[in-house]
Every structure is written in structure tokens, then in C-alpha cells.
């Protein structure tokens, strides 16, 4: 084979470790052999920490009810997602389901965190109007992309903050292995991430926030080291968690198609923090 091959496909074949592998391995090393789990009072305080950030709800779950399987990450590259190979925290750079299942085995308790926003009328109308179109064409349209990012990315950042709040709260309680997972591809370097980048810089978790127009930071550049290695978190699905069945095991629901939420006028996003 003489034709040059993109690094992501080499990565998919060779399975080199990426940023998320290091995150889990460092946290598991910090946790050591401790099997201590948070008390009911501590879990309540972590729930409150999530709600204080604006989360809709949070609930603790045994990690045995987290469903992990390879078919989930298969959907990241067959057919390829638009960020496959384009994001440090997504396949093929993120752990495979098998690798993540091995990390998960070190944890007994986690906390699901869900955020919700009301959808603006204009966005609902746009989604309804374009419902019959192919997404593989729609996502390339600038107007649609702008409307989607403008609506959904603020919610993504709220989820990320809620996950980080629970993770940080657990760390303060002494659960040094606590580590969070968000949803979808990491958006810290997106244009909409400017406000959160400012916060991360203020607390020492990232470089200066950069240009508000996003010329410095957008989008994720996998040819460069991640500027936010302390704050970037993979999505649940990026490491093989079946979000639908995991939520069902917690008594929550995730419906398909996503447009079924239009009548309620809301969008939801869910993350998970592995506590101890």
C-alpha cells in the first residue's frame, strides 16, 4: 500500500493511547486501591452541586448499570461522524469500549447529570422544516450549522460545567479518582466556548481565552496538543457507553427521534461522573 494514509486511520489500526486514556489512567492511579464510596449525605451534596450549576437533575447509579459495548463507538466511524478523527476526545483517539470497560471496572458508583434548555421558536421551526432532508447534507449548510451551534453549544457548556462541578466536588470530598464524561464532541475550542475558556483560564485550567471571534481556538486541532488537558472530557458515547440503556437503567428516558422533543420544546444533554 503506497498511498499516504491519514493519521486517524493509522491510529484506528494501531490503537495508540490518547488524551482520554491518560485522563482515566491518572485518575485511577490517584484513586489507588481505595474502595471507599460516597455516603448518602455526600451523594446528596454532589447532586446539589450539579443542580447549583443549573442542571435539570442528577442521580447516583451503580457502575454495574452503565452499559458499555463496542457497537456504540462503531457508530462513530460507520458511517463516519463529522468529527471522527477531528477531535482529541473522540474516536479513534478516545478509548475503545473494551478499554473503557476496563477503566470502569475500577469504579463502583457514578452520578448521571442532565441539563435542559428550552428551544427557541426559530430553531424548532428550522428543525421541522428540514426534518425530511439528509443530515449528511444539512450539517454542511452554514445557516443550519450556525443555528444548531447557537442553540446547542450553550447547553453543551452547561453540561460540561455541571459535570466538572460534580467531579470537583467529589475530589474535594477525597474521591481523587473522580472523573467526568460529557456528551457529544468536546466543544471547549469552539467559538461558543469563549465564556467557558475565560473561566477555565481564571481557575488555572487553560491558556488565555483567545479571540472572541474564535480565530485562535476553533475548531479542535488534533495535529496540536489539546490546550485544555485538565478540563477536556470525552463524551459517554465516545468511549462506548450506551446512553439510552444506561439512562433506562437509572429510570430516565432518551427518546428517538430527537425531533420528538420538539413538541415539548426542549433539548436535553446527559453526562456521567465516575465517583469512586
Amino acid at each position: 500500500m503506497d498511498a499516504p494514509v491519514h493519521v486517524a486511520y493509522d491510529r484506528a489500526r494501531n490503537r495508540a493511547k490518547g488524551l482520554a486514556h491518560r485522563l482515566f489512567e491518572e485518575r485511577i492511579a490517584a484513586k489507588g486501591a481505595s474502595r471507599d464510596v460516597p455516603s448518602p449525605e455526600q451523594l446528596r451534596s454532589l447532586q446539589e452541586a450539579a443542580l447549583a450549576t443549573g442542571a435539570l437533575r442528577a442521580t447516583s447509579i451503580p457502575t454495574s448499570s452503565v452499559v458499555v459495548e463496542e457497537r456504540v463507538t462503531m457508530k462513530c466511524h460507520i458511517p463516519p461522524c463529522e468529527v471522527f478523527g477531528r477531535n482529541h476526545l473522540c474516536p479513534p483517539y478516545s478509548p475503545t469500549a473494551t478499554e473503557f470497560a476496563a477503566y470502569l471496572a475500577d469504579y463502583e458508583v457514578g452520578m448521571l447529570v442532565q441539563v435542559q434548555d428550552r428551544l427557541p421558536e426559530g430553531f424548532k421551526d428550522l428543525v421541522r422544516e428540514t426534518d425530511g432532508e439528509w443530515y449528511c447534507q444539512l450539517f454542511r449548510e452554514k445557516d443550519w450549522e450556525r443555528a444548531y451551534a447557537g442553540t446547542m453549544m450553550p447547553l453543551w457548556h452547561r453540561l460540561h460545567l455541571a459535570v466538572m462541578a460534580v467531579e470537583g466536588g467529589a475530589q474535594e470530598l477525597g474521591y481523587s479518582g473522580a472523573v467526568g464524561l460529557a456528551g457529544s464532541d468536546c466543544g471547549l475550542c469552539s467559538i461558543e466556548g469563549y465564556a467557558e475558556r475565560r473561566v477555565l483560564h481564571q481557575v488555572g485550567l487553560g491558556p488565555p481565552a483567545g479571540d472572541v471571534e474564535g480565530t485562535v481556538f476553533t475548531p479542535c486541532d488534533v495535529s496540536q496538543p489539546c490546550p485544555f488537558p485538565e478540563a477536556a472530557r470525552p463524551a459517554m458515547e465516545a468511549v462506548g457507553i450506551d446512553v439510552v440503556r444506561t439512562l433506562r437503567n437509572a429510570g430516565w428516558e432518551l427518546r428517538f427521534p430527537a425531533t420528538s422533543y420538539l413538541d415539548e420544546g426542549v433539548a436535553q444533554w446527559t453526562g456521567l461522573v465516575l465517583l469512586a
Partner: protein
Amino acid sequence: MDGARAVGVSLAVSDPDADVEGDVAGFAACGVERGATRTAIVAAEAVALDPGAPENAHRGSCSCEGLNLMSPPLSAHPTEFAGWLVSYRTALLAEVVAPFPAEDGWAQGGLGWRCEWRRIRSDPALWSVVLPAWRRLHEVTMWLERECMRRGYYLAVGFGAGDCELCEVCVTSELCVEPYAARPSLEALGVDVRRTREAAGWSGSAPPGQVSLSGIVLIL
């Protein structure tokens, strides 16, 4: 990892009360409406694997190896596909048949791995028939995958035939430029297309004067 890890694992459908049998029958009809010549519901365990595929796919015996991101050795390895396949229960086979301007018929997977595809691709007369058939099968598998996902079968995935032909030239030094659309073929993933067709009660090869392309959607 053998199947899903967790307690209380249920079927991969968002509505636990879904009428799976009725939905799958609906998908089969939908495939024909969208352009398939015929469809067949099969148990996922009837999808036959070529035991030689993992070796053949990476042996470098094909002179066109490495020219397409959706074909070996850049596509998922057949052993990886076999790991996904065991978690599925139900699949939908779809066939597109078109007149073939040659005396002999040609069916995907009939005469060895992919080299036939390249030969047909280099023959303008044959290609003028096969490319539209490929596009039709691609649209059918994409549509079925989409319908399955919209009905809550969120791990549904569709595979087609031959190399991916969405681009005139596949640039393997770049990431795929057809997100959400490009997908590998059955034979690229090590499926024995002929035996899989026979398991569905179809003939393994196309009759004279016809080309037959097969795709599959793994539903749940």
C-alpha cells in the same frame, strides 16, 4: 468484549415496548419503496463470514489495496466486524438488480474479494450500469438505516457493496469528506455475500445479463 457489559441489558431500541416484528416488516417494505429490487429479513446469525477474510483483507494480494478509506486495510477489520455482529439479532438484506451488458451475470462476492469490482470499474460499458446500481443500493441502505434510527433502533447500521464511490477519487491522506454517508461494503468487512444471500433463500449469483448488488442493515 463479548456483547454489552452491564446488568439489565435490554434490546437496543429506545422504546422498550416497540413492536419489533412489525417495525422490521415495515422496514423491509420501505426498502423496496426506496428502490431495492427486493429485501429479506434475516437473523443476524445468518450473516455468513468468510473465515479467510481477515487474512485476505490485509494480505496485500490486491493491487488496488489502500486506495479507498472504506475498504481494507483502512476499513474496520473483519474481526472487529465479527465482534459487532454477534450483538445483533435481526438484519435486513437488500438487493439491487440491473441489466448487465455482458453475457455472464455478475454478483457481488461471487468471484473473490473486490478485484472483480476493480475490473468492472475499469470497463466503461459495465461501469455505466453498475455505478447507478451502486448509488441506488447506497441510497437504500442509508435510508433504511435512517428509518431504523428514527424508530428508535439507534444502533442500526447499513453496509453496501464494492468500494465507496461517493467521490471520484478517495483521498486517503485526508479524513473522509462524506461524513454520515460513506460506509464500507459487506465484503470489505469479511461477509461472505454469496452464503448470506443463500441463507435468505436467494441465489448466490446473478443470472446472465444481470448485475446484482447486495447490502445489509443490521437493525438491533
